[in-house]
């Protein structure tokens, strides 16, 4: 009986350790780059990118998406899609702002679904006029078959939600006549 209880407690501890072990790692920009969607319109203009609302990742916390990582993924996605002629750091014809307003992440679980909402605004830098605005919601589920360690699974779910979000945003933006 004693041995059975001992084995039971040991099993619970091992299972808990397996589910929670591993330090959180930040979401990677290259994993958030969207697959080029069918672009309706290609623009000759250049664009700059600014991101706010992202968070840093601490080793003991949850995996997060930082402003820099999302901005890099957004820049790479625009370049890959050919939606604008160039992505510049400054002096561009348009400024694309993305505000990561909502990151709904599970605290634990086997299948981890991250829901994300980003508000995008495109401003004509010469006139200061907002030419496009869109609130894009996306989600992605990472399963234990994708990664056994929970912190890695959460990072994969973050990256998937961000990838889907950028893809939707660029697909919508490509229909706008600038």
């Amino acid at each position, binding site marked *: 009986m*004693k041995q059975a*209880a*001992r084995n039971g*407690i*040991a099993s*619970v*501890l091992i299972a*808990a350790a397996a589910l*929670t072990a591993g330090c959180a790692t930040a979401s990677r920009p290259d994993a958030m780059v969207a697959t080029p969607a069918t672009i309706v319109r290609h623009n000759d203009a250049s664009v700059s990118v*600014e991101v*706010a*609302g992202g*968070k840093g990742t601490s080793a*003991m*916390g949850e995996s997060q998406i930082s402003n820099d990582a999302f901005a890099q993924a957004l820049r790479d996605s625009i370049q890959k899609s050919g939606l604008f002629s160039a992505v510049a750091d400054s002096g561009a014809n348009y400024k694309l*702002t993305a*505000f*990561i*307003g*909502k990151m*709904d992440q599970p*605290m634990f679980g086997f299948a981890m679904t991250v829901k994300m*909402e980003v*508000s995008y*605004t495109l401003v004509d830098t010469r006139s200061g006029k907002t030419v496009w*605005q869109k*609130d894009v919601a996306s989600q992605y589920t990472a399963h234990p078959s994708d990664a056994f360690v929970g912190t890695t699974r959460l990072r994969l779910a973050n990256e998937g939600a961000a990838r889907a979000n950028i893809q939707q945003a660029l697909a919508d933006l490509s229909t706008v006549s600038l």
Partner: protein
Amino acid sequence: MRRLIRIALLFPLLLAACATETTSRAPDVHLERLKTFYVARLPADDRGIQKLICARLQQLGYRSTWGDARTPPSPVDAVVTYQDRWMWDITMYMIRLDVQVRDGRTGAILAYGEVMRPSLQRKSPQGMVEETLGEIFK
């Protein structure tokens, strides 16, 4: 056996985290210009958190109403949405509250605030609402 029980009792301490507060505003957003609010009840919320948020906004000097619909019945400056997470540790407590302030016309998120408090630093739902809105509007 005792050693195993001690390890098992220590395990929750390893999982215990510190309270965290996070807030952010979209670039060029001026929350001080917002005067009227509508709090949209989260469909899954049966604890009345929307009423607490609405009451706190009124205490802060804003005109605020709440309802079940996602969109307000009449035009407002901002719509407030939220997600509350609960955990059990002896009793149920709110471990996390996320609040988003959205543009009343477009629905775009203007600002958000998040407060997470683990069991040992738990607050009442009113306290969580006060802290989260305090972070957003400070």
